[in-house]
């Protein structure tokens, strides 16, 4: 009776972002989108033939399910020199500096052509595994200062799994 009911919501803008025929169509004869939809579908089929998702990649993504681990804490990427740092002029081989954080645990990582160096903070001994996928990774040991190093730089996606005390922390997957 007081006019406040649901009808007003019909006016709510932007819910679907839909654009119907009102769009000026630059003199194109048909305002209907039907042909555009056909062309889009034809293009979709072309992409399916000429540039499909590679089957090998599909299998890798299916197998990635093994990385699902609710017991481990995820250390999120909080600093990436590729994004957050101003590049030094002329420094073409500047190391990639990464910082991951999970609660009070921080992991600093430096990736160069010569390998990977890192430190667990606060400093503590830890068992570290460099993962390149669902398969077991390369085991390393962090010293009493929490420092660890490996002479092989990760290629492709990598993550670090750290065991400190009873705690398991895995860094967010990242491309080196």
């Amino acid at each position: 009776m007081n006019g406040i009911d649901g009808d007003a919501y019909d006016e709510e803008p932007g819910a679907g972002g839909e654009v119907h025929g009102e769009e000026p169509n630059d003199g194109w004869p048909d305002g209907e989108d039907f042909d555009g939809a056909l062309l889009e579908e034809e293009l979709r089929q072309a992409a399916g033939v000429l540039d499909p998702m590679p089957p090998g990649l599909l299998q890798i993504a299916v197998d990635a399910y093994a990385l699902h681990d609710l017991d481990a804490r995820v250390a999120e990427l909080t600093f990436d020199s590729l994004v957050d740092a101003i590049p030094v002029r002329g420094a073409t081989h500047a190391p990639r500096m990464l910082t991951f954080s999970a609660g009070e645990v921080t992991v600093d990582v430096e990736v160069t052509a010569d390998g990977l160096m890192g430190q667990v903070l606060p400093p503590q001994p830890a068992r570290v595994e460099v993962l390149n996928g669902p398969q077991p990774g390369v085991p390393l040991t962090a010293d009493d200062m929490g420092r660890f190093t490996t002479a092989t730089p990760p290629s492709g996606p990598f993550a670090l799994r750290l065991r400190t005390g009873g705690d398991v922390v895995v860094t967010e997957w990242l491309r080196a």
Partner: protein
Amino acid sequence: MRTGAVPSTAYHDVPYTRGGTVDRTDVGALVQSAADGDAAAWKAIVEGLGPLVWSVARAHRLSDADAHEVCQTVWFRFAQHLGRIREPDKAGAWLASTARHECLKVLRNARRLTLTDDPYLLDRVSEDGTPEQSLLEAEEAAAQSERVRRLWQEFEELGERCRQLLRVLIASPPPSYQEVSAALGIAVGSIGPLRQRCLRRLRARLEARGAM
């Protein structure tokens, strides 16, 4: 929601993988099931959204190798965050957005940048015909693949913005506008008009070449 849906009967014999087409309304449930240990649900997510992630990498003109690694990274991270994702029904947008950010990092890291070589792509098709093609009659296939090739060539030569938008839109199954928005960092409301403009432009190019 999309306005441009075409009756699926028009291309019931689509030659490429539609495998586990994910109904977008089911994504949230699938993510939940996968988080609870259902490997089949995970596979359905990968099959339904994998092509979208791939298309985001290609929309950014990443090379085969870079696109491969970006997609791997995205799926590894998604598996890692499974069960912690705040809005499971928006997993497609999460994947698209993560892929976009990884692509931008690749582009930023200039030493790794390799532009996709269009002629190479086209050559590759002519050299090793896809299994799908063998399903067609030989003559028909020749005419068809010529048409497909010309269409793809005109598409590749569209302006960068149009090429990028369409490359994501033509993922299969078709992404939602929300996913496209996450993939390219453009507002949902501008996708419809841009899409129409780009398709018109593509059609004009095809007509100019007498290819339609």
